[in-house]
């Protein structure tokens, strides 16, 4: 399994608040081979977002601290490589789709502004260069790729002028800007209504398949897992409690926790959860 594109090894993370240290991840391991579609599923608070943030280098340290483990990307440990090297990967080669389209876009800048800023600094990190015009072309191109009907108009818009579904597409487009090989999606579309969420998931799946990207889909909803992933890790209280190919997991869950999760799947897959899943830490 060392040939996996992304390999999290025995990762332990703790948070220190008010002088008390609380472990949150206890030796999490998971593999995402190139071009594979892997899901990480678990109830709210089980540590999925913390795992994602560790991978993407988004943990604020302190209060967080990584007590042990390694995160290998292309065989190189992200945790020990120089910061500059790591920054060349995150946001470019490994990229992510944010969950909440309402709050993940800056309200006071246009979509074009936000996207071309991301592209500009991604280019800079990678030592590439593009003219302003070329950056804009790329932004419009990617907006087209996420099936946006009028890319120019969307690019000129402020987030408040777009619907939730359109904003979620913009978030996906942002992730695709620098042609990543790995896409991490943390509960994409959970803030949207059921139909739009289904469309977004379909779009994500199509895009990933078209371009042969690896996908790490983070969700609390096993219905989403069944639709998007080939392999599943089940997470509970900061530990991976079960892993299996998707079909196997649904057919014969080994642990009681997984069974409970499966029983909780609404009949109509992708149905909206009744409570909002997590507060962003």
């Amino acid at each position: 399994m060392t040939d996996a594109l992304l390999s999290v090894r025995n990762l332990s993370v703790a948070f220190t608040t008010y002088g008390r240290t609380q472990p949150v991840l206890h030796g999490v391991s998971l593999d995402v081979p190139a071009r594979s579609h892997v899901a990480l599923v678990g109830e709210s608070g089980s540590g999925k977002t913390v795992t994602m943030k560790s991978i993407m280098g988004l943990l604020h340290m302190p209060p967080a601290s990584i007590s042990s483990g390694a995160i290998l990307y292309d065989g190189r440990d992200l945790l020990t490589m120089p910061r500059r090297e790591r920054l060349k990967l995150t946001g470019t080669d490994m990229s992510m789709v944010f969950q909440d389209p309402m709050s993940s876009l800056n309200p006071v800048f246009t979509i074009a502004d936000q996207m071309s800023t991301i592209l500009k600094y991604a280019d800079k990190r990678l030592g590439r260069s593009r003219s302003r015009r070329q950056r804009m072309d790329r932004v419009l191109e990617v907006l087209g790729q996420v099936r946006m009907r009028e890319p120019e108009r969307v690019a000129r818009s402020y987030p408040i002028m777009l619907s939730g579904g359109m904003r979620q597409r913009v978030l996906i487009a942002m992730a695709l800007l620098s042609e990543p090989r790995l896409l991490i999606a943390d509960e994409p579309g959970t803030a949207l209504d059921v139909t739009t969420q289904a469309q977004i998931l379909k779009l994500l799946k199509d895009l990933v398949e078209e371009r042969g990207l690896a996908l790490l889909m983070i969700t609390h909803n096993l219905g989403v897992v069944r639709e998007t992933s080939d392999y599943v890790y089940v997470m509970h209280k900061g530990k991976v409690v079960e892993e299996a190919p998707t079909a196997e997991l649904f057919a014969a869950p080994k642990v009681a926790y997984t069974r409970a999760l499966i029983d909780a799947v609404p009949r109509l897959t992708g149905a909206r959860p009744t409570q909002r899943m997590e507060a962003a830490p």
Partner: protein
Amino acid sequence: MEFLRFLLRRVLWSLLVLVGLSMVIFIIARAVPGDPARMALGPTATQEQVADLQKKLGLDRPIVQQYGLFIAGLAHGDLGRSLLTERPVNDDIRDTFAATLELVLATIFIAVVLGVPLGVVAAYWKDRWPDNVVRIVAIFSAVTPSFFLALLLQILAGYVLHILPTTGRLPPNFDFAPTHTGLVLIDSLIALRPDAFLEGLRYLLLPAIALAAATMGQMARITRSSMIDVSSQDYIEASRAFGVPEWVRVCKYMLRPSFVPPLTILGLEFASLIGNAFVVELVFAWPGMAAYGIRTILQKDLNAVMGVVMVSGVFFVLVNLVIDLLVGLVDPRVRIRGSRQ
């Protein structure tokens, strides 16, 4: 389009506020015990003199009619005549207003240019030493009475260090008068007089700092809490994930959405800034509206007092309209929705 409608609505409300203000002021000035003409002329004046002045200024007419005249005058920008000198109040205020305007503009400039970055610094290093330093500076500048700070600056810069002049607006017998806009700093540039510009700046510095301190402290505090608010938003986290460098994130993505609260407070606190300008002008013998206002008040020249209060009110309302415009420019949500929140 929505934004235009928003601005238009604000302008209309502002007019209403001014009408209300004129009523309040008129009631205070007219409905009090005593006769304005008698008050102005003093106990030694004869009955005929008083009646004469009353007639001249329309004080013998019914109160509603008086208010009508007052409002009609205001609509033409006419504040009536001084009870004492019988000079038009307009002329007196015009002569002094430019000096006050220059002081207040310089004050706002200093307060924003120092206060906002201090707030950003404090928010960026939240709970670390720069934050603590800024908080202490902000608290002290907010609680130091303007007149006291003015005195301290006078002692320090004028008497101890001998670096800056402590009274007036330009050196005595200086052969330059601001004739275009009334603002020394601008008129000296128009007239190509760098020496006058420098002198004007030297004289302006201390009063402006004394007046700016309180507002600067507020700006710093509010920018800080607003930045901290914004820094925990998802979109800041997202820009981090996409590798937007830290300084761009702080100075662009965080700063701009943080601007509305400090701007709003600047507008609301503007009234107390004008009030403080009165004392600061007095300490530095700044030839502004304050000296005029206080003189007329002590002389019980009610028409002039009404004029001073009205002009302060108009000033407040105009500044707030400019702020509405700025808020719209900074925050597209206001532009698009046509309302603040």
